């Protein structure tokens, strides 16, 4: 893919850790790629796997789900439940031929502004390599 | 002029108000077509419906709740229930909606000239009855007595509340309202509509009875009208079913071999009593 491809990434961030972590990165003036469309959710456990499918349908080139580190969930077990769910969803997406770089999950705490930068940079770089999502976005459908 | 059967006309909401409140509140919309040609060519008669909707959301078949005698506008009273009606309830004066129609048959207003009319409504079922009431009222000299019987669960659930006191003042017209359970300062009947009908005890002589309301009420009203010796062809009701196209193509609104959107919504009991799904 061309160097200048700017992937469109939808990021579901948990309110308590990852959103705060991203915020910290911002207030600390840590620079990271601006390709993210952030959707704040209360917990990574709230992210329905269909959100991921829907994001891809609606034009995302990749999706990132980020929550608290295991054991730190504000709701005790939300991220554990999410982990199981997405471990399977990831395999399913991959099995139908969606490049595995398009779905990412991370644990970023409220104090990990630097890690947030690394995660986002990694995801965006990977997606730049993978190129635009062309498998089943709605846009490709001829009305 | 738009002759495409599926292409809706754009109309502007002129005024809105709530008839009732709560989870399934009823809101009335007064709308005017944007296109002058459509406005001038639009004709409807009491009983007919229109597909109203919002582009990007969808359409719902709603009965036109005003009489053509009221002016060059349309009125719809919509209960907040599904996807489209919820979106419609968000509309305020100045917003756009789509209207196509009018659809369905009409009350046979010409045939009824010279006759007494009694309407028996319940809840939102008053919406399709309102145009015939207004129509008869506007042409009072051509019709006999007009009796309006209308009930709802509580006084707050009555639609068109402000209109009945005016209506009762019209010559040879009477209004009987009812609610299910006793309330303070309620001067009218307390009980169910079918029972009120028996109390009024209308004579079937030269009289047309029109009923609309929840299925259970319609069933009891029909039984009582039979007790009052109303012949089948003097009893009318309007049906509703889920609809999509409005022009007898999409297939879903049938009750037996009748398409409610084309053959109805107005039916005489003489016609319906042999239709198996009519009161399902």
């Amino acid at each position, binding site marked *: 893919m061309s160097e200048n491809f700017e992937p469109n990434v939808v990021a579901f961030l948990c309110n308590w850790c990852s959103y705060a972590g991203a915020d910290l990165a911002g207030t600390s003036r840590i620079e990271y790629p601006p390709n993210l469309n952030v959707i704040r959710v209360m917990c990574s456990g709230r992210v329905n796997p269909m959100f991921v499918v829907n994001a891809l*349908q609606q034009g995302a080139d990749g999706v990132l789900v980020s929550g608290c580190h295991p*054991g730190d969930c504000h709701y005790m077990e939300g991220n554990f439940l999410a982990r199981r769910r997405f*471990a*399977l969803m990831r*395999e399913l997406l991959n*099995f139908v031929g969606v490049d595995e770089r398009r779905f990412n999950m991370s644990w970023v705490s409220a104090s990990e502004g630097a890690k947030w930068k690394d995660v986002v940079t990694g995801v965006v770089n990977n997606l730049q390599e993978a190129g635009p999502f062309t498998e089943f976005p709605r846009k490709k459908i001829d009305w | 002029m738009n002759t495409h059967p599926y292409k809706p006309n754009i109309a502007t909401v002129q005024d809105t108000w709530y008839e009732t409140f709560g989870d399934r509140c009823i809101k009335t919309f007064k709308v005017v077509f944007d296109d002058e040609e459509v406005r001038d060519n639009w004709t409807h008669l009491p009983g007919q419906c229109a597909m109203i909707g919002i582009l990007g959301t969808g359409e719902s078949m709603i009965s036109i709740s005003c009489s053509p005698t009221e002016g060059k506008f349309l009125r719809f009273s919509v209960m907040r229930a599904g996807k489209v009606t919820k979106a419609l309830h968000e509309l305020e004066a100045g917003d756009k909606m789509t209207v196509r129609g009018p659809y369905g048959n009409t009350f046979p207003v010409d045939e009824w000239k010279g006759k007494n009319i009694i309407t028996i409504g319940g809840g939102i079922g008053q919406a399709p009855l309102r145009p015939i009431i207004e129509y008869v009222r506007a042409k009072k000299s051509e019709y006999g007595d007009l009796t309006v019987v209308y009930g709802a669960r509580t006084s707050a659930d009555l639609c068109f509340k402000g209109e009945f006191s005016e209506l009762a003042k019209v010559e040879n017209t009477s209004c009987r309202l009812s609610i299910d359970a006793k309330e303070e300062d309620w001067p009218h009947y307390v009980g169910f509509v079918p029972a009120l009908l028996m109390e009024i005890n209308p004579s079937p002589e030269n009289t047309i009875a029109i009923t609309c309301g929840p299925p259970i009420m319609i069933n009891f009203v029909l039984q009582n009208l039979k007790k009052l010796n109303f012949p089948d062809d003097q009893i009318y009701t309007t049906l509703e079913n889920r609809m999509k196209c409005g022009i007898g193509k999409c297939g879903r609104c049938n009750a037996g071999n009748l398409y409610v959107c084309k053959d109805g919504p107005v039916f005489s009991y003489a016609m319906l009593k042999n239709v198996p799904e009519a009161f399902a």
Partner: protein
Amino acid sequence: MLDLDKLRALAKETISRDDIKYLIGWRQGTYGFRTSPHFVGNLEDAEQLIFSPLCSSNLATYLTLAEKRPVPRGAQPDTRRVAIMVKGCDSRAVVQQLVEQGIKRESVYVIGCPCEGIIDRRKLEEKVPHTLERVEARWENGKIILDLPAGRAAFPRDEIVAGKCLTCRYPNPVIADVTVGEDVEVRGSAGFEDINWLEVKNAQERWAFWRDKVNSCIRCYSCRNVCPMCYCAECILDKLNPAWIQRSVNVSENTAFQLARAFHLAGRCIECGECERVCPVEIPLSHLNRKLVKEVSEQFAFTPGIDPEAKPLLAGYRPNDREAFIL
């Protein structure tokens, strides 16, 4: 070999009990190799009951499909049990429904039917086309015997049974109040040869494969409706607000539909293969389910529909679940 007279006697005895509402079994179909679910309400109905290699339907679907009509005022609700005949795979559906509390143990009476493999009608019709006369079939010494109009024919089991039977690890019912016939030997392989060939392809090739299949989906929802595990009162596929999946039929929505369907069966699919059997456009739906079965087994060492005391897989977790994929 199964003794039909014994089966029918058992059925008669069962439906004569006061605590049984009706019995769900199979009967010969209207033509050829078809069989049909059979609702036995009286002794006469019991005479048509069969169990043979042609009994493909997973009847557990009917435990949750029956509409609950309102109980008339003053009447007592009918709490009698439904008797149901189950093959090995079907019994796993019953267990999984119990696990999820979709049904109650005291509301079903399970008649277990050990099964040596169910005929795949498409495979058989390719070998024996144009069969209108009703055909009976039975298992015998590892073969399947068919009484065809042209005479008796024996087919090697593995040639005509459904794909699911070749990988079946539970031919004997895992739950039963009473069992008909003798337990049979487990012959299915524990591997995932059926999907390995697709897994080893690259992402573009896999998508090319699925695009072609999913493109032909007509969204009749038979795969969902036939599934004993798809019993939500309101399915997200039917929801219009929000519309998770648009009703328009195209590659995008069809893919989303199939992903939703497969994922909602993650850790729940009991591999009865009904979705694939009923698909009118022959989409290999089992592949999606089998992929998840494989992942569930490898990552979480879990097999659904075995233990009625188990917890639903995705409703729980272990702190040390694998998380190599997480950044």
